[in-house]
């Protein structure tokens, strides 16, 4: 797993709307097939690492704790979630379908938005051993979603 650093995103009202009462950072496609890990989120701190102290001064915004499935224990193909789903297929879902997770960041976003700052999100995976740069980010997409 490697860290994720976003491009700057605008936080002006035109970007995120007005009158929202809640703002979530939503992770789509989180891979929970391996061991448990954490995703620590920092705002406007692209240099954050798994050694960075989790304080407001460092832009720490929260963490997602991923309760992992610990790897694959079946034969080849057993742990590959099916692509698509046939009609009339009422079987339970494959357990390793990537998940959607979120953390609520309302107060932090409000503060940044008031200053009309841009936001860079750094997502630091915390895993056993070293975080490596040549492995994939453990999610497919991260978005800021506001709700009225």
């Amino acid at each position, binding site marked *: 797993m490697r860290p994720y650093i976003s491009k700057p995103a605008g936080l002006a009202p035109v970007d995120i709307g007005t009158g929202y009462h809640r703002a979530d950072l939503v992770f789509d496609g*989180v891979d*929970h097939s*391996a*061991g*448990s*890990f*954490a995703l620590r989120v920092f705002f406007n701190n692209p240099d954050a690492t*798994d050694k960075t102290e*989790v304080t407001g001064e460092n832009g720490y915004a929260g*963490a*997602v*704790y*991923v*309760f*992992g*499935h*610990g*790897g*694959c*224990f*079946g034969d080849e193909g*057993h742990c590959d*979630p099916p692509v698509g*789903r046939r009609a009339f297929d*009422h079987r*339970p*879902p*494959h*357990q390793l*379908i*990537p*998940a*959607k*997770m*979120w*953390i609520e960041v309302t107060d932090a976003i409000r503060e940044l938005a008031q200053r009309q700052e841009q936001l860079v999100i750094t997502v630091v995976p*915390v*895993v*056993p*051993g070293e975080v490596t740069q040549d492995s994939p980010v453990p999610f497919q997409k991260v978005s800021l979603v506001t709700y009225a």
Partner: protein
Amino acid sequence: MRLEVEGPAGKSAVAALSLATVRGREAGLANHQMDTAQSAVVPGVRLRKSVATLTGADLAGLRAALVAMQGISDDRGYQHYAGIHGLPLPGYCVHHDAAGILGNLPAGPLFLPWHRAYLYFFELALQDAGQDATVALPWWDWTTDPAQPSEILAAYAMETASGQPNPLYQGPIVAIPDSQWEGERRTLTDDTGIDPGPLPAVTFRQPGALPAAPPGLPTPPEVKKALSSPSFVDFSQRIERIHDAVHVWVGGTMSEIPVAAYDPLFYAHHTMIDRLWWLWQLQHPGAGPPARYLNVPLPPFPSLTVGGTLDINGLGYEYALAEVPFVPAAQG
């Protein structure tokens, strides 16, 4: 808090201080006081109490039932029920908000109902094994003030109890095929730094020690915020995130879905989660999983659907903070 209870027909009574009732009063839930207070004294309804308030007799009964259940090797035993959650395959537990059920409905709303069904069947098997219908799963209130150290309660952290190995301290892992165990063993070794060895093995914990562990157990404000969620889906997602963090904080086998349920602490943790769902239900009458989920079955428990899990009194249990037994007044 003063509690006055009138026994049936002037006979002795057992007064149950229902946590739901107490919390309900705090939250202004007058409409539910009578329901929960009455259900707490209905014969046959078992009281799930806080681990912190279990009496010596409660703990002795729980431990005896657990030892008896661990001694059964067939589908009434501990290995069978622990294995339903993860290994051996197939694992049935529902975690994480992944799409894919019934035409791509998210599976997330099944997290709470599936685990309620799981605890229900486990608890009945525990009673059967212990031949004690009063045994009930206790809940571990892990909420901790950040200023205090996070820790596992002594009842589950002591290696021995009354001179015997404490069955709440660790659980056996026996009935997993070698081909599956070797993969899990490698993962556990890589992720925790501890090799549990070949089977038979035992569970282990590393409270707060994993690199990915949260800085402490969930705080009361975090739980309060989850309980204030107006919709079931939102509450379910919030409480599952809190649940995940506790698993990772405990570490060891509890931090891996395939073997988490072999640790006896798993059941105290999930009973707490189930209790919070019940408290949320009391605060949000009429709210629940979206209607399209209600008839969804919860394998491998064919007799329960999502809708069948919504009323815990219908499942024969109630949550209590403590139980205060009264004795009859002397007859004049």
